């Protein structure tokens, strides 16, 4: 996946990124009773990072990411599991949900919050993280870069093997001989 080289996009990408993420968080929050939720919000956030990568280049995107995406995904699963485990403390079944309704709060007025929101946040991180990671690996390895940066290689690859592009070239050489 080659990056897009356009002045307009470069100038506007920051604004677009911000707008997409505001909508995605809105989607996350309204998901309790309306279409939306962690999955859709996470996908939108993931897409916003992909857009950033397309415009600014994939290696630069990786430098700008606040957290390693896979780590964020693992954190999301952990959050979802913990939100499911909390009811166990009160002797309820796994994944039991509770809802709270507050009225007369300052600024917000009326607020309806349930523990499923915590689960949804977990899904949000999971989906966002996984989407970004998948697309980064696919985009990097098809645009001539190694699939992993040197910093993250020891987390994903054995010390015995090179990147798939390198081994492929060695193979090609071996066949040529």
């Amino acid at each position, binding site marked *: 996946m080659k990056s897009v080289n356009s002045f307009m996009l470069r100038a506007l990408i920051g604004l677009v990124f911000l707008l997409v993420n505001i909508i995605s968080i809105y989607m996350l929050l309204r998901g309790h009773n309306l279409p939306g939720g962690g999955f859709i919000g996470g996908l939108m956030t993931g897409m916003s990072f992909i857009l950033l990568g397309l415009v600014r280049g994939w290696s630069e995107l990786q430098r700008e990411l606040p957290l390693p995406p896979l780590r964020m995904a693992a954190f999301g699963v952990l959050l979802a599991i913990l939100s499911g485990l909390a009811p166990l403390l009160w002797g309820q079944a796994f994944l039991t949900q509770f809802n709270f309704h507050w009225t007369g709060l300052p600024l917000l007025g009326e607020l309806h919050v349930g523990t499923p929101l915590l689960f949804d946040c977990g899904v949000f991180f999971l989906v966002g993280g996984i989407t970004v990671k998948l697309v980064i690996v696919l985009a990097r390895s098809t645009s001539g870069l190694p699939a992993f940066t040197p910093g993250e290689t020891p987390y994903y690859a054995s010390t015995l093997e090179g990147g798939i592009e390198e081994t*492929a070239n060695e193979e090609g050489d071996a066949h040529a001989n």
Partner: protein
Amino acid sequence: MNSLIWPFLLPILTALACSLAFGLPGVGRRVFVALSAAAQFVLALFLAVRTFQGEGVPLVLNIGGWSASLGIVLVLDGLAAIMLCLATFISLICILFSYAETPVRFEQPLRLPLMQLLVAGINLTFLTGDLFNLFVAFEIMLVASYALLTLEANDQDIKEAFPYLAVNIFGSALFLSAAGLAYALFGTLNMAHIAVRAAEMGDAFSVKLVVVLLLVVFGIKAGIFPLYYWLPNSYPILSFSLGAFYSGLLTKVGVYVILRMLCTVFPHTLDGIYGMLSWLAGLTMLLAVLGALSRDFIRGILSFHIVSQIGYMVLAIAFFTPLAIAACIFYVIHHIIVKSSLYLIGGTGLFYNRSDSLARMGGLAAASPWLAALFLLQALSLAGIPPLSGFWGKYLIFATGLEGGRYWLVGAAVLASILTLISMLKIWLAAFWQPAPEGGVSKPTPPIRAMTVLAGVMTCVSLGIGFGAEPVFRLSRVAAESLMNQSQYQEAVFSRLGKEAGQ
């Protein structure tokens, strides 16, 4: 009953801790994962003791406290408890074996987390009482198995993963369609509900259609005759520790689900389907054992034996008497232990000879008499020589077959046993008895000793099953009775789901 969620959550949390806290391979991480695997085994034993104290009455957890057919239930009955114990035991042994097999600095960083995810998927498959949740559990298991299959494969072997992936994705799509069909037909995906409604429908053609569709799906997973092509070529690309895990558990998950579907969920009157299954089982045994005879490396021979042994289990299911089901459960217990330990012994042999191709092996009996003794015991047990564990399983299956007058099938099973013995002798002669190859045999190093000890532990368990066949068979009997007792299962589930669900 919240303890039922832990066999699924513990491996998941371990995998997460591996990626969040210990991202890099190291000794600390190895100890942590081994401790977690041991804890899972203890938990499974605890759950099994509780189940069998209650005479096999299923324990039920209704996740999220949802009522009616919306919620997901986890159900633990006798068979599920036995399988949980076996799965966690094999995972513990295989994890320890993989430590001996690979030094820390060459370990693939994603290997341990993925193994834990695989265990999570397998445990959820055993526990679930919901058809769609079963699909999800299968997918967790399969996705982890795809990743592990290709994780350490080299450039020549990687293409063998493609048929595995293709066949299993096809199976998943079929499973999804079958689940959809079941929902349209029964209006629910809860297994206990399906059992009630299927019993009302009786012999309707549509019920048979769903059963056949599900059998095709689980037949792919288990490796029954026309659907086993993907297995014998893809398993040999795994390292021995993972191979032991895959061969011990993944196909047996298919057998477990077939047992669950035919015994607990669908009515016991599908005679035509049992007849079809019995002939397929006979063909599976014979054709796969011929395949094993044609292979010339240990992993290849053992992979074909997995398929061949699946034939015996499916044959026992197809006879479909309470005794035959108990025999099948006994056979599954025996087979999981023996097959995994043979893989571990083969893996130790690989380290002595630096190859597992029979042409380049030799001299193992002189180099390590203990290993030779272990192999001989397990190979004879696989072939079914008394008084080892394989004999009792086969004896029970043959006895029920002869009782039902299925002489041809029993004959085929006997023939397959003899051929199994011959192919095992092939390994024995080439790897153990023959003089050492040119490169000589490695000296036993500490890792090799550790591997031999682990194989020895497995062999002791297997000998225990052989000599203590009576209590093990009694357990299988209790498990089979509670498996066949549909009304007990339904009562246990409905009493948890609330009144409106029971109808």
